[in-house]
């Protein structure tokens, strides 16, 4: 009995030690991350967006009923962004749209980056017939244009959830990243430090995550940011084809509608600007975060 108790004690002690160690490491990482002002600023903006997406519609509910009397009003306290051609409040539209836009954008970027990176690393690292198969598939998705495929899908299904949306868009965007990463990996493979790793018989997982990833990280981060913007624009194209229900609060949809209604009407230019600025700020924030992360993980750059 006593032995068991002491064994348990020991086990508990080692667990608490490793936990402390873990939190310590996280603490160090956190300090590292947040010592960079860029990362702080960027992350806080993104957090703000997420908060707005979750709580915004509760505080400023969006009423989609048309109200022609209030058509095309300018900014005021009741309508901070004015109203659109159907008399609806643009400010609340932007807030209401934040949720679905962010969801679609994030998931798409995540999917394409994850697919692209994994497949790219696998193809570049393993080589052989695996490489050839993956490259063929990537080439096919690079060559076939998205538009006819969307038309085809539009006849068969109607997208109903943001995840479905994200999947459909990311199908066409992972291929470019995949190719680039594959080439990177292929060139890294021949480098000295990797050869050493191989000689030392380090596990493949270790090699991939600890040696290769940090080198392609800047790349992935940049592609993530680009994928975000492309996702928003692609979602508009999909709505216009009838593949998904037309959501008038989607930022890209507002921009497109304002553009097609005619920019000779100055009101439309304003309406176009509000969601555009929202998108731009969001992009800038993500760029800052990726730059910040870059600087954190590649300390050698700081010394330059």
């Amino acid at each position, binding site marked *: 009995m006593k032995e068991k108790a002491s064994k348990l004690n020991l086990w508990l002690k080692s667990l608490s030690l490793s936990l402390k160690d873990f939190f310590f490491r996280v603490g160090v990482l956190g300090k590292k991350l947040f010592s960079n002002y860029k990362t702080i600023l960027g992350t806080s903006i993104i957090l703000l967006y997420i908060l707005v997406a979750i709580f915004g519609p509760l505080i400023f509910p969006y009423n989609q009923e048309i109200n022609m009397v209030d058509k095309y009003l300018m900014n005021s306290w009741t309508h901070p962004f004015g109203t659109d051609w159907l008399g609806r409040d643009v400010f609340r539209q932007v807030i209401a749209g934040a949720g679905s836009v962010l969801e679609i954008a994030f998931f798409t970027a995540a999917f394409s980056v994850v697919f692209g990176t994994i497949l790219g690393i696998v193809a570049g690292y393993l080589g052989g017939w695996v490489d*050839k198969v993956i*490259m*063929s598939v990537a*080439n*096919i998705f*690079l*060559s*076939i*244009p998205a*538009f*006819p*495929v969307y*038309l*085809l899908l539009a*006849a068969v299904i109607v997208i109903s959830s943001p995840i479905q949306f994200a999947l459909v868009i990311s199908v066409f965007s992972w291929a*470019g990243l995949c*190719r*680039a990463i594959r*080439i*990177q990996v*292929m*060139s890294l*493979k*021949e*480098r000295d430090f990797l050869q050493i790793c191989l000689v030392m018989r380090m596990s493949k997982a270790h090699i991939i995550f600890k040696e290769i990833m940090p*080198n*392609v990280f*800047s*790349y992935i*981060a*940049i592609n993530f*940011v*680009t994928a975000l*913007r492309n996702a928003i*624009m692609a979602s508009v194209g999909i709505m216009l084809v009838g593949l998904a229900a037309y959501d008038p609060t989607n930022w*890209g949809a507002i*921009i497109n509608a304002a*553009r097609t209604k005619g*920019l000779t009407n100055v009101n439309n230019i304003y309406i*176009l600007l509000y969601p*555009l600025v929202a*998108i*731009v700020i*969001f*992009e*800038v924030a993500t*760029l800052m975060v990726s*730059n910040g992360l*870059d600087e954190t993980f*590649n300390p*050698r*750059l700081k010394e*330059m």
Partner: protein
Amino acid sequence: MNPETPLRGEKAIRKKQPSKGWLVVSRFFQKYSYFFAKIGVSLLTLTLTTILLFFLLRLIPGDILEIYALKLQNQQGISYERAYELAKQLLNFDPSENVFLAFFHYVGGLFRGQLGNSYLETNVSANSLIATRLPWTLFVSTVALIISFLLGTTIGCYAAEKRKGFLEKLTSGYVAISGSIPDYLMALLLVIVFAYTLNWFPAQGNYDSFSVEPGFNFPFFGSVIYYSFLPILAYALVQTGTWILQMRGSTIGVLGEDFILAARARGLSDRTIRRKYLRRNALLPLVTMFGVSFGNLFGGATLMESIFNYPGIGLEISSRIVNKDYMVVQGLIFFSAAMVILVNLIVDMIYPLIDPRVRKN
């Protein structure tokens, strides 16, 4: 012993030994096996793409006859039944033809160099469209791509090096904004400012057919360049940001390399480092992207062409998809896909020459 009759062992050996010709050929294949493998993969991809495309376009629902009849009805103000009859006569296309048979016809035509004929317009085929519309797209896109690539990589390189400083902030700002604004808005902005407000450049079209005759004469060239200025500017502005971003990321990656540190330690000037080591190494991953971008040019940029009303291949493809002009669209997309695959193949082939680290042992 008869010298003619071989010894038992010799016979066996001689049977095993292949002929000289075969030896030469097989050695040739072995030496360049890397390249042949790549070509094989590319052909396979091309074939798969063709098959996929063909059946994809067929699967999109919609009766061509009905769509064409509705169009005729609107245009000529005749009854729907009459329009349907007219459509049947005007379309040299049999919608009830067996799909697989049609596919064989198509492939047969491919081998003869026929990419596909339009059923909507009689003397129009994918070949003729490529000949007339592709040069315009390529002209604008290639010039813009080259300008943006050169500009982008140069600026990206500088920006990565000089991490602090006004230039870096400026380029970051430019990249962030131009990356987030949709490209057609950028084009629209240019058009509004330069064409409509300032009247410096024409807002749309590819040349002024009201006053110049196409051909090898100076006014024609002048008109073409004049009309292409804004589109090229728009494309270039939009794409430079991406190149800056990519180049910056890549340069940052290279800057962290040991050999850069070693070069500095050796006392080499910044300029030499930049020229000899930094830029070339950083450009490497961008070469694939350049290849992909160049390949994509052959598909055309539909929205930009639509805003500038520039008669390029992108506009053509999208309008014919809407009209379900299968054969031509197939031909055009096949051509575009073939170009993408070809360019990727070339890039893959050339890459080992530039980056020796990638060579197969």
